[in-house]
């Protein structure tokens, strides 16, 4: 069980606890014939479902290896699971909201306040335990894993596709001994933005806890001041109004989670990366004539991936530039970079990709259409107008295979001119230095 990460054991514990309580509430609800208990038990059921989703996506993300069906593995499963949990919670909040509005229209008193109070308190206890279990970010479990292990043994023993929280845990275990200070601070950042699926589950548990709080408050009021057969007074309105407040609290905490998962799932630029600065620095690398198709996105858990196309004059330019480019990306926090070199001569447009797919007809399937020229600053398109065409390159083969998109497009020419104007000062400083 050395591989048993803290997260899984917490989730399973909560799963067992919640399932047990659900069954208990359901049975006592039917025995005592209280609808409130039955409906509260179904809240536990939804908790259970969200826990299952969290658990299963966590396992999928950790266990599944890269393979022919998923070349990146399934590490994104956590983000998808968190999104599902958040949307599920939003839908439940919606139905709870509807119910409480109906209750406001037709208020009803609580019948058996004592039973409801008891079970409500128990439910609250279970939820608070759940919250504590998840909030306590594996203080026990992580300390256990931080115990020093010989690096080689750790390397061999760890099942790959290892845990995303293993990532945080392995700060000390990593065989990479060069733990720079930047690494340490990055680990802290990871701890703060916890694993997404845990946050999804936490939302559900918190929602349930708030619901139990409302139940307890209402039941206490009805217990202390029983209504008997009197018509409903202000007491009957407490439950729905508190519920509405609770719904808004839950929704306000669900939306940030939805936003964060959307950032990952929509392939947005990760938070710590500034595309403007990045493309500025990239375009200043000597040997790089222009860049295009720069894409940066986050796979999951702060693993950023980038791809770009670089136009260079000669293959040697490319090889020198490639290393620098990687360094720039590394400093930006992007560690998986794929660079495609394209060799330009005076005929080809410096703006557009020399080798999109093999024919223009495939344009619709490109991730970024070549017909829409990107704005100069946003798609990593930067040009140095001072680069002289090299006579040495042997890319005859490449030239005939490229589809030349002729410079008829006024947008292209405009943007070329604009960038030419902008980069004049840069060029003066770097003219004549194509090599570092």
């Amino acid at each position, binding site marked *: 069980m050395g591989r048993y990460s803290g997260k899984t054991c917490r989730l399973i514990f909560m799963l067992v606890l919640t399932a047990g309580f659900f069954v208990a509430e359901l049975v006592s609800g039917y025995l005592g014939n209280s609808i409130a208990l039955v409906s509260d038990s179904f809240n536990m059921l939804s908790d259970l479902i969200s826990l299952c989703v969290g658990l299963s996506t966590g396992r999928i993300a950790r266990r599944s290896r890269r393979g022919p069906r998923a070349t990146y593995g399934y590490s994104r499963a956590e983000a*998808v699971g968190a999104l599902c949990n958040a949307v599920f919670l939003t839908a439940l909040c919606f139905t709870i909201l*509807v119910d409480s509005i109906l209750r406001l229209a037709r208020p009803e008193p609580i019948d058996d306040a004592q039973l409801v109070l008891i079970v409500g308190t128990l439910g609250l206890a279970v939820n608070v335990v759940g919250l504590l279990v998840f909030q306590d970010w594996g203080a026990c479990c992580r300390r256990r894993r931080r115990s020093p292990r010989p690096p080689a043994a750790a390397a061999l023993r760890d099942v790959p596709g290892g845990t995303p929280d293993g990532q945080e845990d392995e700060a000390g275990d990593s065989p990479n001994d060069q733990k720079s200070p930047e690494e340490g601070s990055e680990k802290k950042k990871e701890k703060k933005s916890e694993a997404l699926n845990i946050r999804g589950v936490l939302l559900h548990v918190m929602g349930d806890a708030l619901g139990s709080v409302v139940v307890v408050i209402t039941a206490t009021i009805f217990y202390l001041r029983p209504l008997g057969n009197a018509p409903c007074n202000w007491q009957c309105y407490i439950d729905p109004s508190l519920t509405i407040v609770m719904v808004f609290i839950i929704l306000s905490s669900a939306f940030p989670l939805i936003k964060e998962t959307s950032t990952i799932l929509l*392939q947005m630029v990760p938070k710590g990366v500034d595309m403007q600065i990045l493309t500025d620095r990239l375009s200043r690398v000597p040997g790089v004539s222009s860049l295009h198709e720069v894409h940066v996105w986050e796979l999951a858990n702060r693993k950023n991936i980038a791809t770009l196309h670089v136009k260079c004059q000669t293959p040697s330019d490319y090889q020198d530039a490639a290393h620098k480019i990687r360094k720039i990306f590394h400093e930006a926090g992007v560690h998986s970079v794929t660079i495609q070199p394209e060799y330009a001569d005076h005929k080809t447009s410096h703006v557009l990709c020399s080798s999109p797919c093999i024919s223009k*007809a495939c344009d619709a399937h490109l991730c970024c259409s070549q017909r829409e020229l990107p704005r100069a600053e946003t798609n990593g398109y930067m040009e140095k107008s001072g680069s002289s065409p090299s006579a040495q390159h042997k890319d005859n083969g490449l030239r005939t*295979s490229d589809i030349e998109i002729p410079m008829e497009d006024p947008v292209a020419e405009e943007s070329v001119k604009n960038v030419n104007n902008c980069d004049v000062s840069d060029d003066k400083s770097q003219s004549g230095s194509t090599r570092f």
Partner: protein
Amino acid sequence: MCGGMAAQGPGGPRCWQNRRARLLCMLALTFLFFVVEVAVSRVTSSLAMLSDSFHMLSDVMALVVALVAVRFAQRTRATKKNTFGWVRAEVMGALVNAVFLTALCFTILLEAIERFTEPHEIQQPLVVIAVGVAGLIINLLGLCLFNHHGVGGHGHAHGHGHSHGGRQQHPRGGPKAEQPPGDGEAALHREETSTLVENCSSSNGVGQEKLGDTKDDMSDVQVNGNAGHYPLDEEEVEEDSSAQLNMRGVFLHVFGDALGSVIVVVNALLFYGLWNPCPEDGPCFNPCVNNHCMENATLSQALGRANKSERGSVTVAGPCWLLYLDPVLCLIMVCILLYTTYPLLRESALILLQTVPKQIDVHSLNSKLRTLEGVEAIHELHIWQLAGSRIIGTAHIKCPDPSTYMMVAKRIKEIFHDEGIHATTIQPEFASVGSESGRGKCELPCRTQCALKQCCGTREDCTAKKTEKSSSLSISCSEVVIEFPKTRRTKSESIPSVKLEANTDQNEQFESSL
């Protein structure tokens, strides 16, 4: 309707507007009906109708989600926040709708179970029938509106893969392949300078699986675009599988609502016809609603006493099974909905998980690439679907030297193209002296301490078991950093290579947690 318009030529953003128009129309109708239902329920003070009206509200929310997704997905240009544009928004909208629908099914299930324990009578069945029929009509209208993207999308939404060799299933694709490319080119505004268009259309133009129920002609245009019928407007080809996913989500919501209306109407009709209600006056015994055992006992006593005194004046409320009809039908409806929602959920989740699209076989792609001359090894081969037909691939190709790479670069792109992967980023790597050939080392990894942060770190199976998994992809990429080669390159001898941490121990692999 949408495909018809597009077939006439560049139709502008009509198709996209068409989608949006349909969504807006349905949204307006549904919201209006929701308001009407709320009003009627206040007038007749029928709680059941009020709660049913909120089902319509959930429909409204689903439509709003789909609309937002469509608006977003329209922006396909790269921006500072998103280098791919927002095309994936529709896939996400589909997922959100599918999960939302599942959650609604869950709550309906709970309500049905509650109804089992506490059956309710329907008050004023006539009003319920009227409003139920009106709701059903609106839902049927919605179903017609969104029928293109209907339920039959099981496994066919990925029908845009270009199968090599061209399955000529679609009649429009067939003749196009034989037509001279000049026909199609005449429609283009830009001149082609390469003859590869011909190659493209012949190898590719007809590879479209039959899409089953999704007869959306936009998909035809999109495939035939390769064969020369070139759609010039971006938005026209956006009605592809990602849009279909989004519309399927909406369709399923409307479908669920329609089923709900059907149940309401059927239930109310049967109730109206068969139920024997308790009259206002006179003793009435309702055997169907047993709350407490005690109550029952006293009731039966009362009944017994009443029976002795006045026979026939105690009415017994109508057949009890009627009360259980509603929950049973609801359960059936929940099962149907879950069964039809699950494929949508699965498809959108698979796209968002960056999996390889169904129609692409990475093994065969890998072997095709490796059999090319000049290609020594391939690693970090990744293929994923951005949205719809936009499939993206990246690979690191190891070649002996740059000139060899130039020669194979075109072939490599062609191979990817044949599989339907049009946006590729190929990184050439040149072998160093003395390194082993075959699968192996990534020449340009990030620095060693980034191993944890790379998308694909080393694998356990690289360490001791190098030979296992030989049939699988050579994705394993060790993070051993080696020097740049100095001697093999033809042009760069004078450039001193940057010396990185030269760790040439091949057995030392770094673990990373992916």
